[in-house]
């Protein structure tokens, strides 16, 4: 049984641990699941030219991002044996130590869950139009670039 319904990816502000717990607990009734893999992206207090990042402010090209995420989801369901999949990404300001990306993959078996989660995170970073402004304590900023 696969679940492919479109769901809201973007959320204003950080993703809270309670939201994650709530997502996990919704899977109790899906008893064909044997393995979940969850990836969380957390904002790092990187030091850039002597200044420490205090927050990242995320923005997106929402229509394009949603189309792309929809393609990625569909492809994931064909590539991997998945029971369900959830992706959430923050918009707006997320402070260091807070969570901005939550990818949640569930499968009967662990290999598919691991493969799919890792693949999804790479696809999201590579192909989804999201930008991040790394904000310092003095209110200056630089634009984040993802490392491959």
């Amino acid at each position, binding site marked *: 049984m696969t679940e492919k319904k479109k769901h809201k990816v973007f959320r204003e502000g950080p993703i809270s641990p309670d939201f994650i717990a709530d997502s996990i607990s919704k899977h109790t009734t899906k008893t064909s699941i044997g393995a979940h893999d969850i990836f969380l*992206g957390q904002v790092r207090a990187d030091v850039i030219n002597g200044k420490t990042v205090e927050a990242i402010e*995320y*923005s*997106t*090209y929402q*229509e*394009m991002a949603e*189309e792309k995420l929809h393609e990625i989801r569909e492809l994931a369901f064909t590539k991997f044996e998945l029971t369900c999949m959830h992706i959430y*990404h923050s918009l707006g300001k997320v402070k260091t130590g807070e969570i*901005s*990306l939550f990818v949640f993959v569930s499968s009967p078996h662990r290999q598919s869950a691991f493969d799919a989660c890792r693949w999804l*995170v790479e696809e*999201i*970073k*590579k*192909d*989804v*139009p*999201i*930008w*991040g*402004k790394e904000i310092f304590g003095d209110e200056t900023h630089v*634009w*984040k*670039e*993802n490392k491959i």
Partner: protein
Amino acid sequence: MKLFFFGQLAEVTGKSEMEITNISDTETLLKKLEADFPKLKNLKFQISVDRKIGKGNVILENGSEIALLPPFAGG
């Protein structure tokens, strides 16, 4: 046609969107933008047309939705 600027490109151009007319393809658009906003020459970006990133020169049509996309930084 609508042209959107995102991330650092909105910052550099001072605009998040503008109307453009009488531009036939993305190469022509790029030349015009670099003339209007010289700082764009030093920045990496891709152009999307109707939310797809095309390869090479893409023909623009009336009603196309165009966007300038700096390097992605999701996650």
